[in-house]
């Protein structure tokens, strides 16, 4: 089974530009999560999708961040306009049902550098 795939692995942009990160979850996983790790800090929850619906977006920092999951498959996280403090690693995770119902599988992360 393919794992969680994230693209790009690294993005370097100027302050004020836009970046879109993509996550492809494990096939059949209805639950998709975005997390972020700012350098030196803990990995923090951003939001949770169940299929195409946002179940919990309490961790989204501000309205410059927009997450979508049209069709309930892959998800995108757009940052517009990017600020210096948005730099960090963005992780995506997915979760299925059954015996794996309480376990998140993570992707390798997308490192964002805002200059």
């Amino acid at each position, binding site marked *: 089974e393919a794992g969680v795939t994230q693209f790009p692995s690294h993005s370097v942009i100027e302050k004020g530009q836009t970046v879109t990160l993509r996550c492809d979850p494990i096939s059949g996983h209805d639950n998709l999560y975005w997390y972020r790790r700012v350098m*030196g800090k803990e990995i923090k*929850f951003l939001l949770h999708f169940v299929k195409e619906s946002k179940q919990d977006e309490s961790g989204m920092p501000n309205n410059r961040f927009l997450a979508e999951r049209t069709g309930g498959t892959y998800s995108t996280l757009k940052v517009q306009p990017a600020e210096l403090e948005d730099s960090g690693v963005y992780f995506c995770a997915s979760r299925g049902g059954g015996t794996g119902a309480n376990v998140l*599988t993570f992707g390798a*992360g997308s490192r964002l550098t805002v200059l």
Partner: protein
Amino acid sequence: AQSVTQPDIHITVSEGASLELRCNYSYGATPYLFWYVQSPGQGLQLLLKYFSGDTLVQGIKGFEAEFKRSQSSFNLRKPSVHWSDAAEYFCAVSFRGGATNKLIFGTGTLLAVQP
């Protein structure tokens, strides 16, 4: 507020030595408990988890962890460290019965292994 504490930011051990990484949590009830590892250039990989039952859980790569309710701890151990264990280790919890199963992470412990 729920929180996870990993008091050791950076640990160095010699290859072949034993290892213990500490994790304490602050939660109203016993949560689900996890340890993840991130090797250089890799994503977050699940090492082991505790949901219920035997408080000593075995994981991959020879790791184990012990849940101690009285101490609100879930320390990770390995009897003999290998050079390939050099990585960053994250303790995480999630709330039992929660709708999102989102994880709350500690700040991580960076493990260096000396030859």
